[in-house]
Structures are given as structure tokens and as C-alpha cells.
């Protein structure tokens, strides 16, 4: 069973998307742990280790990803975590997308994405 950590980094309170996706992933047979709101990068990476997940799914709509995402990736590297798939949902300016992908956030899901697309992406990547 694929194990996913759904995380809300920063002070953003919008978690409709995170909760809907979490439930859809569960319905698709994955185990999902939702962190709740206001998680620091340190707390998120700690949870990745404690819960031993294969997927870290970040949800953010506040625009703070330009600080928070690099920090999370940096901490993952520090802790030598290499085999975790990192995906993110929210609003990302199109010019930032290549930068985020290069950083190692391979799945970026903007407004209008179906939960089906996210499920397929994760199943595909984790299998490989």
C-alpha cells in the first residue's frame, strides 16, 4: 500500500484541496496521513521520517512556497531522504514551475486538476 503524507506548510489556512485529495487518495487504496494546518518545514520532514512515507504531498495557496519549498527540499537532503516522491498542489506562477521541478518537486498540480490525475501520477511514479 502506498503511504502518503499530506502536509500544509506555513500559515495558510486553505485546506479544502488537501482534504479532498487526501480522501480521494484513500478511496484509491492509499494510506494518507494529514498533518493539519501550520506545519513548519522541520515538522514536515520529521513526519516524513517518523511515518516512513513514500510520498510527500504539499498543499499551498498562500504564495509562500518560494521560501517553504526550497527549505523542505534542503531538509530532506540534509536527512539523506532520497526515495520519497514530492508532489505539490496549489497556485504556482507558471514561470516558477521549471524551478520547482528542477528542485525535485516532480508533480505540480494547479487549479482544475482532477483527483484522478493525481492518483495516476502517484501510482505511476511509485511503481517505478
Amino acid at each position, binding site marked *: 500500500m502506498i503511504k502518503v503524507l499530506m502536509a500544509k506548510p506555513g*500559515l495558510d489556512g486553505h*485546506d479544502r484541496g488537501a482534504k*479532498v485529495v487526501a480522501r*480521494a487518495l484513500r478511496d484509491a487504496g492509499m494510506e494518507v496521513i494529514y498533518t493539519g494546518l501550520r506545519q513548519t518545514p522541520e515538522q514536515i520532514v520529521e513526519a516524513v521520517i517518523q511515518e516512513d512515507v513514500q510520498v510527500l504531498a504539499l498543499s499551498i495557496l*498562500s504564495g509562500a512556497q518560494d521560501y517553504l519549498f526550497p527549505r523542505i527540499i534542503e531538509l530532506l537532503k540534509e536527512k539523506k531522504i532520497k526515495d520519497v516522491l514530492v508532489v505539490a498542489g496549489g497556485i504556482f506562477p507558471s514561470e516558477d514551475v521549471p524551478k520547482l521541478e528542477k528542485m525535485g518537486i516532480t508533480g505540480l498540480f*494547479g*487549479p482544475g486538476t482532477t483527483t484522478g490525475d493525481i492518483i495516476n501520477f502517484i501510482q505511476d511514479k511509485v511503481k517505478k
Partner: protein
Amino acid sequence: MADKNDLKKIRKEMDEWEGKLAETLKKRPERKPSFVNTSGIPLNRTYTPLDMEEADYLADLNFPGDYPFTRGVQPTMYRGRHWTMRQYAGFATAEETNRRYRYLLEKGQTGLSVAFDLPTQIGYDSDHPLSQGEVGKVGVAIDSVRDMEALFDGIPLDKVSTSMTINAPAAILLAMYIVIAEKQGVTPDKLNGTIQNDILKEYTSRGTYIFPPESSMRIITDTFAYCSESVPNWNTISISGYHMREAGCTAVQELAFTLANGIAYIDAAIKAGLDVDTFARRVSFFFISQQDFFEEIAKFRAARRLWARIMKERFGAKKPASWMLRFHVQTAGSSLTAQQPDNNVVRVAFQTLSAVLGGTQSLHSCSRDEALALPSEEAVRLSLRTQQLIAHETGVTDVVDPLGGSYYIEQLTDEVERRAEEYIEKIDKMGGAVKATEKGYINKEIEESAYQYQKGVEDKSRIVVGVNDFVEEEEEKPADLLKVDPTVGESQKAKLKELRSSRDQSKVESSLKDLKKATENKKENLLPHFVNSVRSEATLGEICDTLREVFGEYQAA
């Protein structure tokens, strides 16, 4: 309302009409086996006087400005004055946001609405570790009274009304407003505006809580008491369904949960020893205007009637002003699509129109680029123009409650009200909205509706134009999206450093000491202490930290 004999005749004719329909349906079936609105209310093919058989015009509708205010809170509504055109705005620094406010006022906006950044909303200064990356992003950064002064620079506070979307630290931002008005020579009794100050929906759907419910409720009732004496024209709370709806609930749930929260605030104030008629006239509301046109209009009308009855019958309020539900509307951010963003202009126009037909007092229309970024100046102007167009060109503002008496609208108003009442009864049985929130009941209801909505989009039983149908393969990305200056965090930090080195530190310390003592004494009103602390140039973070020491912080379950 029709004569008994007429109704008999209508019923007979309707039976015949339905008989004849069978043939039409065989030849041309309807688009769906059944029609249901977003609240799950089944919709008939058409509505007739038969649906209004039980209606009592004077008791249920009455005239505009008369109890139960179904048709509007003022007797002349928009024939007297249009709603306040109030675009929610704020980003980066106070100086930059001030420029946006002046631009909007110059373009004919009639009130201001402040969006604060997340650190301000959660009571952290811009130099707090948790503020990193967040400063100035979703709103303007306000650390102290100096920022507040810059925000309203050159804007006469006795002439303009200001709404502030601020909750956990709402009373502190109000204190800042009072202090900067003083500097302009404007006394508190001349101030007009609103603080959102609605903490209950923060726990369920918006997330900017600081303190646990009990302490938060004390700050709110302190605000009611202080303002009824000192800032009599200030709306002390704006009880909001908007965010619960954006989080995914239905129209009926939005109405029910909002009024249930309203009941909790009124209950708390009465328990704190206030007379309902001294503060209830300054309780205001905030709803969404979503895509289902008639359902929204019915919701606004049902809201007024239901609240009037709650205030009069449940709380025994005696003054008509205490019975009136006055509200602000914002069109639905979550209905906007990143795909084909120009379509959003049309969505917003429909939603704006239904808010006007529902009798709103104040209105924000979203902008076409909001699924992509904070709105650009040009996009906001178009939204303001949408309101001006409806106000001045369509003629819908020339008659009060123009849809009143429509068989469909009246039946739908009754049904929305009935279903909302059922929810309120259920919440009453749980011990009220505070308990229902703590138990997670409201959250569960919202989450379930959000999930069902998404399923509808994915199985295409719900069409979103440009997203799951009528899709364009190649789309051009809109240019000129607003980008918040990335140096704003650093410039706020520099301003804080300057503040901390130039203010009278002993004054700050003594005002915070007094505040702490007052916080420990439940009988003392906190508002005068907020005003003192603000005046001493204590920062928002320092004031909130003082409260945190006594109240602790809310831990989400």
C-alpha cells in the same frame, strides 16, 4: 394567497397540463432524470400559485424595511442609495496598499476593505521565524500603528468606511484604527466600518485562530461592550458564511452554520451581562454569492427572515435595528478557473447580480485573474465596473426586491429557510455552535459536501465550463499578473528594527504589563488596554504574545 376557487381551477388545469406533458417527454426527454440545486433541494418543472397556498404576505414577506425583512432591511433599498462598492485589497507594504486604495477610490469605489497578510492575521510580527516567506503575500503586513498610519495616509477616516478582514487580533487592529483616526482629529464616534472578528469559522474553515474558544469569545464580547459605548457606528462583528462555503459546504449549510455561530455570539454577550438591544444592531453578516443564481437569492432572503425571527423570538430583542440582518457579499473565489480566465468575468457578473437581487448592503466582486494570482489593478477595475454597470445601467436597482412574489423564489426561500432551521435545531441539541465546532461536526459536514462537489465535477454531473467541458487545448497564459515584491519581508524587518530603537521602551513595557494584568482579570474589558498598548507603539506580535501568556494557544484536534 390566491382565492380557494382559483386554486381549485389552477390545480385542475395543472393536472391536465401534466397529462399532456407525457407526449412531449416521450418525444423530447428532459436533460436529466431529476433537477437538484447545490443544497440538494429537488426542483420542480415550474412553480405556480399552488406553491404559495400557505403563504401569509404580511407575516412572511411584508414590506421592505418591515419585520421580518424578507424583502430588504430598508424601505427604499437601492432607490435611496446603492450598496457600498468595497473591493477587498491588500498586499506587500502599507505604502503600496495605500496606493491601491487611492486608485480604487479615484475609480469610484465607495468603501475600503483591508486584506492583511497571514502573520498579521495570526499575530506574529514580520520578523518572527514563522513569518518567513509569508510577509505581504496574501495581504498587507501591519506590525504596528506606524504601518497602520501609512496604510490610511491621506484618506479621511471620517468620510470613508473601512472593513477589515481580521479575526483573532481584530480588536487590536480596531485599536490601531482608533489611534490613527485620533491623529487625523477624528473621534471614535465618527468612525464607520467593520471588523470581521468571527473566530468560530476560523476553527472550522479559515484557519487564522490564535487563542482557545473561551478566551476568543471574551475578546469578542469585550469588543461588543466597548464599541456600543465608544465607537457606536462600528460593526463589531461580521459573522461569515463565506469561508465555510469556500471550504465546500452548500448554500443551506452556509446559512445554517453562520446563523448558528451568530446565536453563539449573542448568547455569549448576554451571558457576559450585556443587554441585547445595546449591541445587536452592530452585528453584521458576510455571505458568498455562488454560481446557482436563484438559490443564492433565496438564501439571502431566507437569511434576513430567519435572523429576524431568531432575534425577536429567541432573544427577545425589542428594537427593530436588532432584528435586521445586514450583510456584505463577496463573489465566489472558488468558482473562478485558471482555465480560460476571461470566463471569470462573466461568472463574477452573474454572482454580483444575484447579490444585488438578494439585497446586499456591501459588495466585493472578484477579479478574473484570481485563480492565478492576486488581482492586477486592471482586473480589479473591471470588477468594480461590473458593479457600477449593474447599479447604473441594468435598471434592477429601481424596484425593491424585484423577484419578490415569484412563485419559484418564494418557494425556494421557504425551503432554504426550513432546511437551515433543521440544521440549527441539530446544533442546538449538541449544545450550540461552540460545542458543535469543538466536536468537529461542522468540519465533517463541510468536508463531506466538498468531496461530493469534487466527485460531481469529475463524473461531469456538474459542468465547469473550460475545465471539464468546452476545454481549449491550447491556452494563452494571461500576462501582467501581479507579483508581490520579494523584498517586502526584508523591508518590514527593517521598519521593525527602526521602530524598536526609536520608541520609548519603558512606555511599551508598562502598557504591556497593564494589559497582562487586565487579561488575567476576566471582569476587565481589554479594549482600553489594546488602545494604550497600540499608542505606546507596542507591536501586534508583542500584544498578542502578552495575550498568549495568559490565554494559551488553540491546538487543532
